[in-house]
């Protein structure tokens, strides 16, 4: 199921966000794997609390970045959903 702006993204139960002091970079850790995140990716994932929809996340980020980010946020989270790191609902 592809994600849409009304989807409610939540991190996989086995995954957690962290900040790697060595690389000075946010990371998403899960069994046998790690994704090194850029600041934008980390900002998106920190807002995935299982309550907010993608639209709601995009609205918060729009205030920060001063542009419409709904499509970008949907695309980014869909890629992580393909890897089963993000779940809908």
């Amino acid at each position, binding site marked *: 199921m592809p994600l849409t702006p009304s989807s409610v993204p939540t991190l996989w*139960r*086995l995954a*957690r966000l*962290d900040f*790697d002091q*060595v*690389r000075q970079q946010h*990371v998403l*850790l*899960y*069994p*046998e*794997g*790690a994704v090194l995140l850029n600041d934008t990716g980390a900002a998106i994932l920190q807002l995935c609390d299982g309550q907010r929809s993608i639209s709601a996340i995009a609205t918060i980020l729009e205030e920060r970045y001063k542009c419409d980010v709904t499509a970008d946020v949907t695309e980014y989270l869909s890629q992580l959903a393909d890897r*089963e790191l993000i*779940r809908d609902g």
Partner: protein
Amino acid sequence: MTANRPTTLLAELTYRCPLHCPYCSNPLAMAGASEELTTEDWQRVFTQARELGVLQLGLSGGEPLARKDLEALARHAHALGLYTTLVTSGVGLTESRAESLREAGLEHVQISIQDSDPETADRIAGMQAVHLKEAAAAVVRRLGFAFSINAVLHRANLHRIGEIIELAASLGADRLELANTQYYGWALENRNALMPTAAQVTAAQDVADEAIRRYRGRMQIIYVLPDYYETYPKPCYGGWGSVYLVVAPDGRVLPCHGATHITSLQFDSVRDRSMAWIWEESPAFRAFRGDEWMSEPCRSCPRKTIDFGGCRCQAFALTGSATNTDPVCTLSPHRAVIDKAIDEATAPIDYRYRYLKLETERA
């Protein structure tokens, strides 16, 4: 060539194990408890690994629960922020042990199962372990650990892959690794008894593909292909000394758990050197970084950035030189040794079980 930062450390805390699986990746000649690193040694190793960039830690063996200091090691790893996995047979993972590991901050437990058929499972393990594993799985679920099951596949169980998947789901796994046997160490000794048939491999692939789709979102299934039946070799951990390292029970640091089979290399120990020096400077880790070491057909092959020439341990074991192309590759001049091994794999299933070389232990 400069080194990347490693992401993953497999800590083989001990070779001691109550199971005797004939495909064990541990070496044939294993050190006993008296040669194992101390608690302080391991804690120093974890700290240095984190400083080097390691994010993922596997507490493995042997059976890591054989170490009485496992809780102290898990606690130290957690304090460093490592994502830590206990790689266990489940034997010895009692309620109280699991609770103290949870309390120490351990996040992820991986339990091995040998088969869906209890009788065959116990025959493969060389002990009656099925009921102990079921009990361990229940405790792991109850305490809320991230929970993986690992099953090694071979001729005696590959045709039951569907039942193995259903068993893992019924035990409540979040994640299932279905790993076709890789032929190193004990598995190479037992290759004729373990090698699946072509018909089994084809049928299993279909079952795995269907189950991966069906369980999506509920149980993540990772299917590791039987490399002897592949056209190209596996890209071992992104290439030699790229992201992965192993510390053996005696402190030697290895680029992969099978590397001790390459007898032409010498491996430095954390007893003598820092993890950073070993990763960045040691001759063993520099031996096959990049592509300078490659011979043909790898050297001029466009796939060299995809599979990095395949597995160095397999090249050494089967062709006599670690700089040769992995013979699994159909472009390798040594591919015939693989085809011959497949053709010969009709022997009765009669295992040579894994046993620790007996020596007086002072543990």
